[in-house]
């Protein structure tokens, strides 16, 4: 074969991988370059706070445990978008199965498609490998709070088993500080009527640091008008765990094709499970 043919073959080969795109050069499944939005909580929270500032009725959807059920997630997001009454979405953690950056991106892109602001707590699967760093990069710190009008959201990292006592999970210093801030805010002008605690695993789960479950409850009772939402157990479980009126709304995973909708008013709230 002559020089001409060789040139053609080489050019052909080069075209193949330039066509397939330079973004396909991946260094490692656990070290993927990020495309698209990162540090999401910063902008989402700002958006939620602005959107819900003077709203009487605040509605949010709670989706949890995506874990590779992207098709079901897509359907859920489409339904949420079509409803039109949802103000924002809260994800209950376990966006991923293996803590891979690509999995985070797939789930994020689904949530982005809703066109609504969204926040997420960290799940135990999200911590696998270097997942907790990926979560922090893409969303922000795993413990965070925000105020949607008169509702205070406290979103906590509760997957203690993943951290093996190397980090305070749940972080009582964070909770204590938040309670103090809230008390100060309410003393100034009685603005916060309700608190919603979002967590991935709840007291009693194998992921939770159950040695401090009662202490956790003691701290949480200081929040005004509290109820909790959680994921992790892949089943619906609405219960008053400590028999003190604080309800834990445990939502099933998205694979079961269900999500929760909470409609909050100043004098109460409605809870609805949506099967699709």
């Amino acid at each position, binding site marked *: 074969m002559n020089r001409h043919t*060789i040139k053609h073959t080489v050019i052909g080969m080069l075209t193949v991988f330039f066509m397939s795109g330079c973004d396909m050069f991946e260094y490692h499944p656990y070290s993927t370059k990020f495309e698209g939005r990162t540090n999401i909580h910063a902008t989402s929270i700002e958006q939620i706070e602005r959107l819900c500032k003077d709203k009487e009725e605040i509605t949010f959807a709670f989706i949890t445990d995506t874990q590779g059920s992207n098709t079901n997630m897509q359907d859920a997001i489409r339904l949420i978008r079509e409803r039109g009454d949802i103000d924002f979405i809260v994800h209950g953690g376990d966006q991923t199965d293996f803590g891979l950056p690509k999995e985070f991106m797939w789930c994020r892109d689904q949530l982005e498609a809703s066109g609504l602001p969204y926040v997420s707590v960290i799940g135990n699967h999200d911590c696998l490998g270097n997942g907790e760093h990926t979560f922090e990069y893409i969303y922000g710190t795993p413990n965070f709070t925000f105020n949607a009008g008169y509702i205070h959201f406290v979103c906590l990292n509760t997957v203690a088993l993943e951290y093996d006592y190397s980090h305070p999970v749940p972080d009582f210093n964070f909770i204590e500080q938040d309670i103090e801030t809230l008390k100060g805010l309410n003393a100034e002008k009685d603005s916060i009527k309700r608190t919603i605690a979002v967590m991935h695993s709840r007291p009693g789960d194998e992921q939770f640091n159950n040695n401090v479950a009662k202490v956790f409850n003691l701290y949480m009772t200081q929040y005004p008008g509290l109820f909790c939402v959680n994921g992790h157990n892949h089943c619906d479980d609405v219960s008053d765990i400590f028999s003190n009126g604080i309800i834990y709304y445990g939502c099933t995973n998205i694979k079961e094709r269900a999500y929760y909708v909470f409609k909050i008013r100043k004098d109460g709230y409605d809870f609805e499970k949506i099967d699709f």
Partner: protein
Amino acid sequence: MTLRRLISKLLPAILLFTSLGTANAQTDTLAITADSAQTACGDSITDVQRKYRNYEKRTNWYKKQWAALIPNRFSLQYAGDIGMVSAGIGWCYGKRGQWGTHVFLGYLPKNHTPSSYWSFTVKQVYTPWSLPIGKKWTIEPLYGTLFLNSILSDEFWTKEPDRYPKGYYGFSSRIRFHLGIGQKVTFLVPAHKRFLAKKISLYYEVSTCDLYVRQRILSKTIPLKDIICLAVGVQYTIL
């Protein structure tokens, strides 16, 4: 039959290992004995020479066996799910040189993670076709590869740590299995221009890993391009 052949191959090796020290020591004296014996008796010369020749045969065989372990391929790869840059040594073997085994050490720079990583890879390559183009060029239009990668960091585990209930996650975050295909073009360096490399090859490959495949099977909505990864590399063949 195969067993007998195996024994016949192994036996000299065992003998050689056990008598290596004495055989080495004898080499020098043997030469002197051979010289001085030359004038004495014809029969004993042939006997000594025969023994010496047999000894040489065995050491040559021994050298040849170890020589087969000298790596003859050196690779430098960019991307490909085993590191940003990975350097490797490899062995090419088989009747037509269709098999290749490579080991790589890859470097992963700090990304969104607080630290950089090193990764280790063992790669097996099978090249069914190799087409010569002229005297200087060869094209391997398609080769298949299977590789195993381990990220060298304590954040990742091969076996689940004891804190988890048994079979909690049921996978290893450290070990990844990859499957890929690629194409390679090789330039045979003319003998008078050789410095180190006999052949210089350029290759690229597309691959995917076990976890990506699983997620793609679960969710058809994941675009195929998201689970496929590209790599380019250069390979030097010596010897």
